[in-house]
């Protein structure tokens, strides 16, 4: 990474106050150093300036040798104006005020002014700027332009064309940030409209963001439209638990119900973006299928009961179970949950049969085998990498926020990205080299890359490995995988010391483990960074806090199917959805004597349950989650737990206390303190000391 560099500064004055700012800094940013704010619409700090709306105009002059300031005859747009030596900026003059009024009057000429029924009313930059800087009345008496009021751009985004002020933020987002370039301006003048090609569906994995960055109510959320006024909503910070990225979000709710999810800034993780899966993936909070009371099986029915009954059933089935009992899942639970689950299973029930992984290959993890960490790069660090390898994953689907970072590294810094996958992916559009291999030949490609680097003398490997990879010459790899030898060579050139990004879905591929080994080796010997990112909200936490000594998922399911297990506990997981072999899952669940199903919403596995333990949803409890880069982030409770649901840690601890009386933990903070004591990775991580943006385990 770049060492601290000397930044060249220039001396400018802002409203006659002298200040030194980095050379070339945009004036719209520079004024923030003095706590001032220039009203804007089209400018967005994360996108290139375009100067389309003229809201940000300021008066600008230059210091003359005699000390006077000579002003330019016309105002300038602060969002496209770089600071230069001797510049004098005025944000508060008569002329600026008059011109801002003029700009707003123009913007409002065709605007329908339907704020009373607009979703954006109350949090609308146009409303705010008009209130602060605009005219109080309009002189425009002619007919306004009319356009469709609710055009469905996609199933998530509804366009109200009349409200659009044509700032281009949405268009630029799809071009610069998400990269799908789905939106563009069609037609011109008053008829200009941001829309998709031929008005087709707006197919983006990040479309929800344009709703948030639209400075008016033109792009609205199809899910939130007309459901609330912003001032009726309560909002609290939360962490998205839909996938392992751990995006920071604002959780907006009203009378105990989730209403919408908005992006919250965390520069280390999601900057300010969200993906559609997360932004629109919290509907389950209000789902009819939520489990609200404990259930127990009576004949072919699950009937409501109380916790005491469920606890005693579980205890009867699991206590002293030793090798005959097991638990699966936990990767979507908080660190506190998995820690207490582990304690209960190993410490009280006396079994090490505990696993949260559902991939096809569950041999010892590659990292463990080679003695390296499987997570070596933070999300933010990817931005500065000059080159990287994305291997065997459709990143935009599996890890959308990591995808945005990789794309940013290319878009902003020109990073050279090598994309290797058996099918087309979104990352192809900016890839320097695409290695399209036949499915199942991952290992050959990875070994080929390693072999090239070794034979070029860029890396040393032990003799045994050298022999093993020797046959993988580019030509041989081409035969096996269909990747042209030349491309492989070009790719290998780029990969010395580069971060390697792949995901745990590689463990689902037949040759995935070998490929991962080659990749980890490649990173190791070239001083690169190996990352096999996990995919569930707290899979990293479950790995760090779990045990690997007992049976793994395959063995557990096989044992259950063979009738060798007395009791099985499914912790917040539906194996039907995750495990590749449905048959086996069905047999296992049928043949196990006692099946405890713990979860938030009804699942298929529930049909086989002996008891059902309703667990509250993530935002209904306090807890920490370890994301894909091993960043531990705390989510405080946003909503009250529904019905008689309980947090996972509480369930485990209440059962433990019944078997072995001890002072229980009263809150997850105490559990975390215990984790910090026991697990070196979490050392010092108490709730009081946890920074707002989380901390990254190294």
């Amino acid at each position, binding site marked *: 990474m770049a060492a601290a560099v000397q930044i060249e500064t220039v001396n400018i004055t802002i409203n006659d106050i002298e200040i030194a700012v980095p050379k070339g800094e945009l004036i719209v940013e520079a004024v923030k150093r003095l706590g001032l704010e220039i009203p804007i619409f089209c400018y967005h700090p994360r996108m290139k300036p375009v100067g389309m709306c003229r809201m940000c105009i300021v008066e600008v002059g230059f210091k003359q040798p005699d000390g006077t300031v000579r002003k330019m005859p016309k105002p300038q747009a602060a969002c496209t104006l770089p600071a230069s030596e001797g510049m004098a900026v005025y944000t508060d003059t008569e002329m600026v005020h008059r011109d801002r009024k003029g700009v707003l009057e123009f913007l409002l000429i065709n605007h329908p002014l339907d704020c009373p029924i607009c979703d954006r009313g109350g949090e609308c930059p146009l409303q705010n700027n008009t209130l602060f800087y605009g005219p109080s009345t309009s002189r425009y008496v002619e007919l306004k332009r009319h356009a469709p009021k609710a055009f469905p751009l996609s199933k998530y985004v509804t366009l109200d064309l009349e409200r659009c002020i044509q700032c281009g933020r949405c268009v630029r987002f799809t071009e610069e940030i998400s990269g799908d370039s789905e*939106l563009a301006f069609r037609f*011109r003048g008053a008829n200009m409209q941001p829309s998709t090609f*031929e008005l087709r569906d707006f197919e983006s994995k990040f479309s929800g963001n344009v709703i948030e960055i639209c400075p008016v109510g033109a792009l609205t959320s199809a899910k939130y439209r007309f459901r609330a006024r912003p001032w009726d909503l309560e909002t609290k910070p939360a962490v998205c638990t839909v996938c392992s990225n751990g995006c920071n979000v604002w959780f907006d709710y009203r009378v105990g119900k989730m209403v919408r999810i908005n992006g919250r800034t965390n520069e280390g993780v999601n900057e300010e973006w969200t993906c559609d899966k997360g932004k629109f993936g919290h509907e389950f909070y209000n789902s009819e299928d939520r489990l609200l009371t404990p259930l127990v099986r009576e004949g072919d029915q699950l009937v409501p009961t109380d916790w005491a009954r469920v606890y005693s059933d579980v205890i009867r089935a699991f206590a002293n179970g030793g090798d005959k009992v097991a638990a699966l899942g936990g990767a979507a639970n908080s660190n506190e949950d998995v820690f207490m689950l582990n304690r209960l299973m190993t410490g009280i029930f006396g079994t090490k049969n505990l696993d949260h992984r559902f991939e096809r290959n569950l041999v010892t993890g590659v990292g463990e085998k080679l003695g390296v960490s499987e997570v070596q790069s933070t999300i933010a660090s990817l931005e500065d990498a000059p080159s990287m390898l994305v291997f065997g994953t459709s990143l935009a689907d599996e890890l959308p926020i990591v995808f945005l970072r990789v794309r940013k590294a290319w878009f902003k810094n020109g990073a050279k990205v090598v994309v290797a996958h058996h099918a087309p992916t979104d990352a192809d559009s900016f890839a320097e080299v695409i290695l399209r291999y036949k499915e199942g030949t991952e290992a050959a490609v990875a070994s080929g890359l390693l072999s090239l680097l070794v034979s070029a003398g860029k890396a040393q490997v032990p003799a045994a490995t050298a022999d093993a990879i020797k046959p993988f010459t580019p030509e041989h790899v081409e035969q096996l995988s269909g990747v042209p030898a030349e491309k492989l060579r070009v790719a290998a050139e780029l990969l010395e010391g580069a971060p390697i990004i792949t995901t745990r879905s590689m463990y689902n591929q037949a040759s995935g483990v070998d490929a991962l080994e080659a990749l980890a080796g490649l990173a190791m010997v070239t001083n690169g960074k190996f990352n096999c990112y996990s995919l569930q909200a707290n899979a990293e936490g479950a790995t760090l806090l779990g045990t690997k000594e007992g049976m793994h998922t395959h063995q557990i399911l096989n044992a259950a199917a063979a009738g060798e297990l007395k009791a099985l506990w499914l912790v917040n997981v539906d194996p039907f959805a995750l495990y590749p072999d449905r048959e086996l899952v069905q047999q296992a669940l049928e043949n196990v004597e006692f099946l405890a199903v713990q979860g938030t919403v009804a699942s298929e596995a529930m049909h086989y349950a002996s008891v059902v333990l309703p667990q509250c949803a993530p935002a209904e409890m306090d807890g920490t989650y370890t994301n894909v880069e091993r960043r531990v982030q705390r989510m405080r409770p946003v909503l009250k737990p529904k019905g008689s649901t309980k947090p996972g840690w509480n369930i485990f601890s209440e059962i433990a206390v019944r078997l072995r009386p001890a002072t229980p933990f009263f809150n997850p903070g105490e559990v975390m303190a215990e984790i910090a004591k026991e697990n070196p990775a979490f050392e010092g991580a108490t709730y009081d000391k946890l920074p707002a943006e989380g901390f990254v385990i190294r």
Partner: protein
Amino acid sequence: MSELTQIGSINERPRIPTRDEVELNFSDKAITELEALKTHYPELKACILPTLWIAQREYGGFLSGEAIAEVAYRLQRSYAEVEGVATFYSMYNTAHKPGKHKIELCTCLSCHLCGTYRLRDFLKEKLGIGHGETTADGLFTVEEVECLDACDRAPVIQVGDTYHGPVDEGYLSKLIDDLRANPESTVVKMADEMVKVHIRASER
């Protein structure tokens, strides 16, 4: 952000259409022209306008969705961007398929004063169509346009790449008969002329 980033940096590269999404209809001649065109500019983005002219010619005077998609594919730009460019300019026919001949009536001040609307009514009577409409036989389209920059010849009309003016009913009537007899589409010819402006004879 200490460095000023400007739109159109070298890294700008949108998601491009894939081969299986588009149907390619450019003739060999068009492909040769396009290849020549690409050598004129440092970036493919700069080729969008002339390539749209090629497409307008290749697709019989109308830039349909398929035509735009083909341009996007051939220039490795996004669909939306190319459509945005095409719909911005009124000389590209993107809204609907024009007839074989497009009669454009200037309705700006000088022409207006000199009787454009009389001509419009005459056309309405003679062809049965008004602004933005096409005759049922697909021969004529009438469009009212802004100043054609030939006010000295007001009232002016444009048909294909030719200006006519000053025009009266008699002239118009004769012109229509001539056009009926003309087997070639002036709309396509106009597109071809525009392509020729961009591509040297040696390159064709």
